[in-house]
Each structure stands twice: as C-alpha cells, then as structure tokens.
C-alpha cells in the first residue's frame, strides 16, 4: 500500500506574511463592503424601524394579517411536502438509464429555468374563469362550468401552491437525483440477490442513504418557500380582497400602503420561525466543511 499522505493543512504563508495576508484582505474587501452596505445596514435599519410595539398591535388587529398567517402555514405544510414527495418519486424515475429519459429531464427543467412572469402569467390566463383554456375546455368537452379558480380564495391558494410546485419541483428533483446517484449500485444488486422487492429496496437501501439529504432539503425549502413572492403575487396579487396574501406578499402590500413599519413588523413576526432554520442550515454546511477539510 502506498504511504498515507499526511494531508498538510494549508499554511498561511509566512514572511512576506504581509504581502499574502494583505492581498487576502484586498480581495475579500469588495464582498465585505457589499455585505456591510447592502445587508448589515439595511437589516439593522429595518429592525430599528420595527421597534414600535404599536406596529405589532395594529398588525395583529388587521384581519388581513391573520388570513396571511393561516395561508402561509397551509402553503408551507402542503406545498413543501407535496413537492418533496413528488421530487422523491420523480428522482427515482429520472435516474433510469435511458436516452429518452435524459431528454425528458432536460425538458423537465424548463419551469425552473424560465422566468416567473411569462410562466405564471400563462397559468394565470389559463385559469381565467371566463376565457381561460381550462374552463373553456371543461365546458366544451364535459359541459361543466369550471369553478372560479382565482376568485375563490381557497381555490386560488391551492392554485398558488400548484404554481409554486410547478416552478420549484425541477430544482429539488435534481438535488434528490444527485443523492440517489451517490448510492452505490452494488447495494441494490445485493438487495436483489437477497430477494428484496422494489418497495423493500427503497425502504432499506434508498431511504436510509437519502434521508439526511431529504430532510435538509425540506428545511431549506421551507425557508425559501416562505419567501416565495412570485407564486402568489403574479397569480392573484393577493386578491380577492387581500384574502390570498402570504407573509412574503404582505410585506410588500404594506410598502404599497406606505406603512413601512408594518412591513418590517410582518417580517419580524416570521423571524422566530426562519432564524432557527437558517441557523440549522448554516451549522450543517459548516459542519460538512469541517468533515471534508
């Protein structure tokens, strides 16, 4: 066996220490500047804006806020889980080694790669109760008067979730595919020899290897779905009667009403949920850092 190469931890260069460290600082400075000016200052200022307790009182008394919170919770619970179950299933589909499946996966990415406005507007028009394609076809083929997809608040929320899933599914499917591809083929072959069924292979080979990735991805997706502005705003604009707002769009609504303190308060209210998740994600990534370095 070849000698174990003791990996030399990279050394911060010595004499001429000043040159190397100086360049390090010079090259790091632009990003630090960006961070200070465009993240730290705005966030601090924003939190300062959100310091008045009255903002929260009026916020909690606003019925729109309550609806938004309920909507957001539903959105997160349903959309994220449905999306991930689909991603889990489809990731298994897309790893099959066929040329046509590879082509399909290339097409499958389009919803995610394409910008939101064209696609979400397209869906919006498809769902128009009067002249949208869906209702027209429903009438023409089945003589049914299609429902008010976007003017019934519950239906509209469901449609927004669908839009979100449509757009986000490809990305997470890709991630889970990578997770599946990392599982050595021999494990499946051994399971086959041992007589395992498809479901058993999933339960005893696939899932244990994928579990961590699945959970971490779900948590990250929770954070990002919480911030999904486009799916709701471009589909319904929060209407009808501000009944389809989620926290992400609510903040902007308050900006539009020139109530900046309420906008900030909305965000602050979501923080106790967001920050622990963010902290957890950061720890996971730094943890992986330590392991691989």
């Amino acid at each position, binding site marked *: 066996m070849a000698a174990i190469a003791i990996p030399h931890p990279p050394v911060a260069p010595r004499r001429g220490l000043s040159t190397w460290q100086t360049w390090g600082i010079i090259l790091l400075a*632009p990003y630090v500047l960006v961070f200070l000016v*465009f*993240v730290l200052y705005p966030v601090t200022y924003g939190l300062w804006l959100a310091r008045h307790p009255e903002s929260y009182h009026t916020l909690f008394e606003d019925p729109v806020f309550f609806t938004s919170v309920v909507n957001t919770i539903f959105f997160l619970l349903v959309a994220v889980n449905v999306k991930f179950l689909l991603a889990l299933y489809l990731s298994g589909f897309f790893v099959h080694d066929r040329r046509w499946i590879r082509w399909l996966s290339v097409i499958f990415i389009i919803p995610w790669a394409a910008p939101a406005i064209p696609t979400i507007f*397209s869906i919006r028009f498809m769902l128009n109760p009067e*002249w949208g394609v869906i209702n027209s076809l429903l009438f023409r083929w089945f003589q049914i008067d299609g429902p008010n997809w976007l003017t019934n608040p519950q239906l509209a929320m469901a449609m927004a979730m669908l839009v979100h899933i449509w757009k986000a599914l490809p990305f997470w499917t890709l991630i889970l595919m990578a997770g599946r591809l990392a599982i050595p083929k021999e494990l499946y072959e051994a399971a086959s020899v041992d007589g395992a069924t498809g479901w058993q292979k999933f339960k005893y080979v696939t899932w244990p290897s994928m579990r961590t*990735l699945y959970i971490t991805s779900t948590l990250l997706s929770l954070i990002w779905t919480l911030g999904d502005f486009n799916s709701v705003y471009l589909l319904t604009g929060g209407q009808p009667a501000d009944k389809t707002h989620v926290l992400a769009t609510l903040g902007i609504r308050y900006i539009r009403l020139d109530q900046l303190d309420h906008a900030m308060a909305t965000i602050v209210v979501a923080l106790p949920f967001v920050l622990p998740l963010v902290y957890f994600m950061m720890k996971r990534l730094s943890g992986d850092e330590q392991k691989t370095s």
Partner: protein
Amino acid sequence: MTNRRLLSEAKLWLVAIPVLLWTLIPIYHIFLFSISTKDSAFSGRLWPDHPTLRNFGTVFRQEHFYLHHFWSQIWNSLWIAVATGAITLAVATGAAFAISRLKVKGGRTVMNAALFTYFIPAAFLAVPMYKAMGTYGLLNNRWSLVLAMVTLASPYAIWVLKQASDKLPWELDEAARIDGATPMQLFRLVYLPLMVPSLVAIFTYALLLAWNEYLYAFLLLSHENTIPLAVGLGHFLASDDSPWEILMATALIYGLPPVAIYYAFRGYMVGGLTSGAVKS
C-alpha cells in the same frame, strides 16, 4: 423476458407522459397566445384559427401603450443582467480565493455571513433593502438593482467557488510559491485557469438571477426609462382589458434568452448546483 421489459417500459411511459404534459402545458400556452389574434386567444382554443406573427411585430415596433419603451426596457434588462454577472464574478472570485487559498483571517466569519444572506428569503430582505436604497439615494437608478442583485447572488457564488477551489490540491500553491509566485501571479496564472468552469457557472447564475428578477426590480425602479422588461410586463396587469396576446408575445421574447442561456451552459451549472446548497 421481452414481456417483462415491455411492462417496465410501459410503467416508465405512464410516468413520463403526465410529467411531459405537466411541464409543457403552461409553456405551450404562452406560445399559443403569442401567435393568436385577440379573438381566438380568448376563445379557449388549443390552436388558433389563424396563427399569426403579427403580435411580435407589434412588440418590436412598440405599437402599444404598454410597449412604448419596449426596446429601452429590454436594454435595461440586458444591461442590469450583464453588470450583475460581471460584478458578482469579480467580487465572488476574489473573496473565494482569499478565503480558500490565502486563508485570510476572518474568512470563516465572512463565509458564514454570506451563507446567512443566502438562506434568508430574498423577499424578506427586500423591504429593508428598499428603505436603504432610498436612504442612499439610489432609487430609480439602475445601479440599485444591480447592487441588490450582486448582494443576493454573491453568497451562493462565493460558496460554489469555495467548494470548487477547495478541491484543488494544496501542493499546487506550494509548488507555485516555491517557484517564486507572488499572490497575484498565483491568482492569475494558476487559480483562475483552473476555475474556468465554475466561473462560467457563476456568471451565468448571476446573469439569469438578475434577468429573471421581478420583486426587487419593481420595488427599486419605477421610472419608465429605468425599468427592466420584467417590470414592464407587470404593468400590463394594471388594466383588465389589456391585450393579453401581446403580453404573451412580449413574455415569450423575455423568457427565451434565459432558457436558451441556461441550456447552453447547463453542463457548467448542474455540477455547481447539486454540490451547492445542500450536501448529502
């Protein structure tokens, strides 16, 4: 034997067809509308009676109220996207090199700060950003969107570059240093050439992020001349009887470049993405 294969192939097709339909229907719908006349668009047909390219003509000739500034808007989109890509590339490359190869003091803290920015939902950051840009006097200036997008794109960019950079063997730096390289020589002659695929991926990523952005664009820019095409498209929704078929034609024009660019560079991007935010 062949029967079993046929059955398993059939099962695959059973999944493939709904997936294909699900993916392409909204896309097809954009296309459908853009080649339809006003009447056939609203008739709910699957294929227009008289397919036409007239809508595109209307767009290119700026012949509608909402289209008067089409060309300057598309130019803004392009300008903002390229500027974001270039500046993100510059900022992130330097930062990743400093953190990964030069092991600069405080590198881990900066990396953590960047990660924090990456995980926080952009929609949440939008409100304070809007206020801050106001304070800086940058509202309605294209630079505000560029800098906001750079702020949002850099963290992921630095992360991806750092991951790629960590894979380069340390002996290369040591060999270069013994060969007599200064930090800049190491950066220029050894580091950058070896990072080209990741640099392409990052540039593309930032470019697309800026081109596709809507929320920040409409918060920070409002003047007819500064708004990018995304915001211009949003204006169509202001009235109820806007010409939707023209909107869809414009939207198609707007949506084509990012998809094309993504497909051109997807080889570079997929690697970066799957090793990016989430590790198994």
